[in-house]
């Protein structure tokens, strides 16, 4: 169980990215965070694994205080939290295999890994992960030779290498073709359902949110302005949506088969 308590982040230039944000995520939740660009979604996700240092507040995960963790302890927490990014964040010039093995860095010995020496079982694990995501045949290509959807699957494979108990996904489908969005989110849902993995994901498209979320929180200007369960989000009207996204917002469809208002 993840507990975020009174989390505040103020950047050096004075921008308040998060203001007194508190929420809980139960194990096995598929929590979707919605909000405009700049509303603090990315900051919130990065505060959870401390890629960004929170200014105030506390984050507890299974009773461990993430905000107080340091050095080795922090790395041990991080390695159990996978992360998937909007722009995939692969090392473009390295091979797919190397990128996936990168997810194992928190577990292996430092020096051999720097020299690209990984235990045999890790390599097998990487192949299995690629297999599972359907890109095993791409393993020896350079990451930047792959299409966007394939790259994001490499990103997920890298996260899986961490044997994560939780995955943070920062707008995982925002730079993909809408048609591919379902394929990526299906993978995450599968992990959520089959392995009871907790997933925190920021998303934009209402129809995707309605299809995948088990719970939703909405951010506006760094504050939580909406909390909803699966049922509530399914019943969400355009008016409520506009409350979070502002009057200018127009709902767009994110894929075939999903109805959308224009």
């Amino acid at each position: 169980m993840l507990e975020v308590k009174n989390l505040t982040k103020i950047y050096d230039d004075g921008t308040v990215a998060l203001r007194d944000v508190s929420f809980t995520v139960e194990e096995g939740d598929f929590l979707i965070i919605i909000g405009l660009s700049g509303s603090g979604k990315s900051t919130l996700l990065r505060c959870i694994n401390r890629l960004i240092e929170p200014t105030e507040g506390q984050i507890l995960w299974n009773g461990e205080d993430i905000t107080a963790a340091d050095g080795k302890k922090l790395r041990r927490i991080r390695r159990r939290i996978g992360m998937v990014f909007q722009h995939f964040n692969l090392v473009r010039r390295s091979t797919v295999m190397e990128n996936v093995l990168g997810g194992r860095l928190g577990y292996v010995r430092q020096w051999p890994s720097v020299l690209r020496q990984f235990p045999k079982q890790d390599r097998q694990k990487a192949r299995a992960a690629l297999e599972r995501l359907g890109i095993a045949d791409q393993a020896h290509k350079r990451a930047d030779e792959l299409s966007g959807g394939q790259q994001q699957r490499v990103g997920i494979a890298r996260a899986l290498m961490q044997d994560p108990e939780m995955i943070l996904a920062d707008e995982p489908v925002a730079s993909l073709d809408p048609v591919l969005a379902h394929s990526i989110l299906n993978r995450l849902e599968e992990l959520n359902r089959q392995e009871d993995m907790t997933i925190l994901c920021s998303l934009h498209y209402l129809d995707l949110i309605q299809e995948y979320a088990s719970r939703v929180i909405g951010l506006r200007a760094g504050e939580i302005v909406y909390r909803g369960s699966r049922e509530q989000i399914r019943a969400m009207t355009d008016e409520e949506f506009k409350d979070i996204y502002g009057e200018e917002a127009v709902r767009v469809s994110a894929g075939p088969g999903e109805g959308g208002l224009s």
Partner: protein
Amino acid sequence: MVTRTTQEESKRSLVSPPVAAGASVVLPGLGQLLARKLWRGVLILGSVISVLGLLAWRIDALARREPTAMAKLARAFERRPVFVGLMIGATVFLWLLNALDAYRLAHPEHRGVFWVFLLILVLFFTLGWQISEIDMRKAVTELPDTWPLFSRVMWPWEAAVTRRTETVSARAPIQSPCAEDPPEPPERTSGEPYLRAEPTCGDLSELDENNDIIPGTTLTLIGENFEPSTETQIWWEDPIGNEFRIRQEGEYVTVMTDDAGSFQLEVRMPYRLLPPSAEGPQVHYVEARQVSDVGPPIPAEPLLLSIERMIETIFLGMMATFFGIIFAVPISFLAARNLMSGTWFSMGIYYVTRGVMNIVRSIEPLIWVTIAVQWVGLGPFPGIIALTIHTIAALGKLYSEAIEGIDPGPIEAIQATGATRLQTIAFAVVPQMIPPFVSFSIYRWDINVRMSTVVGLVGGGGIGFILIQYIRLLNFRAAGIAVWFIAITVAILDYVSAEIRERFV
């Protein structure tokens, strides 16, 4: 569309067309200014002023000695009628065209004369032609003069090989002036070449007070036992050991031996080279020589020297690149904005590093060599120093830009996996930096080898050092060999470096 109309209305002329034209006659560009065409007016005024100023300067340069302006103009016109006439005519035409331009701009239709700018361009082109002393006639008529040089440089390989030579010679003493005891002709040794002169004494040629030649005694030379049917040169050696070939009517004296290896010819005794203080009878020698090539062709000195120096050049470039990289890597970190933007102090270091690198880079390597030669003397070492300095600045900038350009995304992603700092650098930073670093370094090596062929021109060692010497000695064949080596090496290197870079990036 609405806004555009109002804009055009606000641009309407302040004065009527005739007034604008009149204003432009008084001061070019003024009418355009009044027609609310600020930049057009400034451009025309500026052009007219520069054209007049430059023209005045050129006329003065053509007629420096004339006292008055009119006299200068007349003299300049006399010397360069086409240039001066064209310039004055075109300037007057430009003035009129400028008035017409102003008139039409002030008109509600608001359309100027495009030809004004074309005319300005023509004026500057004509001035440029004269100022830079372009002389097409000379370029064409004197082109054939370059042929001997050009052909030697383009195909210098005759000078690349040589053969060992063997000399067959015999000499005979000559006394000058004649005294009581003229030397005996040399003794005959059987089988050896033999030369005899008659008489064995005489007077050297001399100049009288009118610088006319008083011919010396004519000697009859009789040679025997030389190589048959071979060209034989006649040499002279004076008492202090100066050797030279005898010339008569401007040509070297040579003779062909007959089938038995004998010859007979008459030569005048050469011009006296000894100082007048050397008085009294002296013994000179006349010598007949047959020089023949023997043995297989062997590489000549220019070829061997070019190869040696080319190797030196390549290593010079390599060492400079090597040292440059060693220094440039740490410096590039100081010059990377993304790494140095922390505090005002580190930003200060960033600006200083950048500034120094920009200054060093803007000074040509040739100038650095000149400085380094003063420092460590002639040879490849000052070349290495100069190229290293330039390489540090150039690579430092390129490297730092590569560092600035790295994608922070992978760093974030690797950190999120629980990796240590070292692992993060090894996995997310190094793979991003290696390709540009390798690529820039090879590119620089390529540049440095090319530059090292030039640094020799100012004393920096390498092939340029011998190239400039051959050129100054007018030994164009040898220079041609050096040029060929440079061309071949640079071409190969160009290809190799492009190939390697392509593989890496």
